[in-house]
């Protein structure tokens, strides 16, 4: 559903490897964690603690808090507001995200 506008896979901006639910994911330097996850096909970031419904980023600018993930062991981080860093460990609510 989401793709990068250019075919650049990080050659120009620099490639950053992170781990998402244990899998290696290639991102670009400067990506937000949310952007990198969406580009990598992650669709479910968290689940509603009330209904269990799957949730994904909505605003991508720090307002809606729909994109919360666990980053380097710290839960509840805003994936859209944090830049990827080499070796970063990201956990979604899914543990095992579906890819479509």
């Amino acid at each position, binding site marked *: 559903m989401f793709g990068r506008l250019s075919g650049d896979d990080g050659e120009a901006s620099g490639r950053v490897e992170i781990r998402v639910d244990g899998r290696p994911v290639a991102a670009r330097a400067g990506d937000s964690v949310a952007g990198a996850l969406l580009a990598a096909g992650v669709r479910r970031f968290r689940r*509603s*603690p*009330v209904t269990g419904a799957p949730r994904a980023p909505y605003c991508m600018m720090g307002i809606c*808090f729909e994109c*919360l993930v666990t980053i380097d062991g710290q839960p*509840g981080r805003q994936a859209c507001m944090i830049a990827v860093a080499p070796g970063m460990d990201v956990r979604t609510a899914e543990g095992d995200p579906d890819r479509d």
Partner: protein
Amino acid sequence: MTGGFDLVVIGGGIIGCAAAWGAASAGGRVAVVDGGDADDRASNGNFGLLWTQGKGVDAPPYAAWTRRSAHLWPEFAAALAEASGIDFGFEQKGGLHFVLSADEAARRMAALAPPGSARDDFAVEFLPAADLGRDIPGLGPEVFGATFCPRDGAVNPLRLLQALRGALARANVAVFQGRRADGIRATGGGFAVSVGERQLSGARLLLAAGLANRELGRGLGLELALFPQRGQLLVTERTPPFLPWPGTAVRQMPEGTVLLGSTQENVGFDKSVGVAGLAGIAQRALRLFPHLGGLALVRSWACLRVMTPDGLPIYEESPRFPGAFAAAAHSGITLAAVHARVLAPAILAGGLPADVASFAAGRFADWQPHDGGPEH
């Protein structure tokens, strides 16, 4: 002239919208003029409680007026949800005020449920922590108990406003959003309100502009003793449900966020937030629910209460210009139902309801206008 309205309402916060919808529902032709986003807007930043507990302990007419609203809320909520198609989270299954010591509990119960007070559906009872703990997981060890009133409740205040605006549109109320009333003139038998280039004419006028009522009232011979009182609030990220009833300092919204509030500060027209105020709120909340300490805070904000010297509402008709009314209250959410169902039809018919006789503006004749600075 755009005109021939039965009622022109200045201000589209909760009081103006509730009154406008009530008047339209009663058959009136109504217009609402609602200023800009930069205005002080208590209706956009409040806690959303429908609260009777402790209201009017020393002022029986206020207790009665509040209770009348609580009685009207179920019908008002159902009609508004139907008219707007918007669910604003109305609930009225009781509310809690937590206390941390036996002393605090005794003082509160002596005030709210003195011996011999009526055992009606507004009767406040004390629930000890051991009982509360059965329904509220994570209740802190410092909590001594809570006072509980079965008639208290809550709404989502932003959705309530959205619902009213939707209902106004469907009821063909003329709403001028983002427009200020720049001038009000009595025309003999009515009023002309200028909104930019436009002139609205109305047989009756209701000032419902919150804190701005003070300024607007002067031109109509109404001295309204209103001043701002700041409240700071916090909201956490969403967490699994743990608190089935709304409370005065803490309520969990249906979506799972936890609302924490609120300070009561006399700092004039200053809507800034600060660490001191917010930390105080958070510390109190952590004593009630230690597990909240693990949650991220997603937002904080401050909002100004529309306060009067005795904390009770003001309803007044201009003696100089009959037909011009003003309404101001710092419990505008709680009172929305009675404003729509009782106040508005009465104003439309040309007078204030007898219930509000003791809330006249004249009781503050000696008041020296101030902006609620720290000296007050």
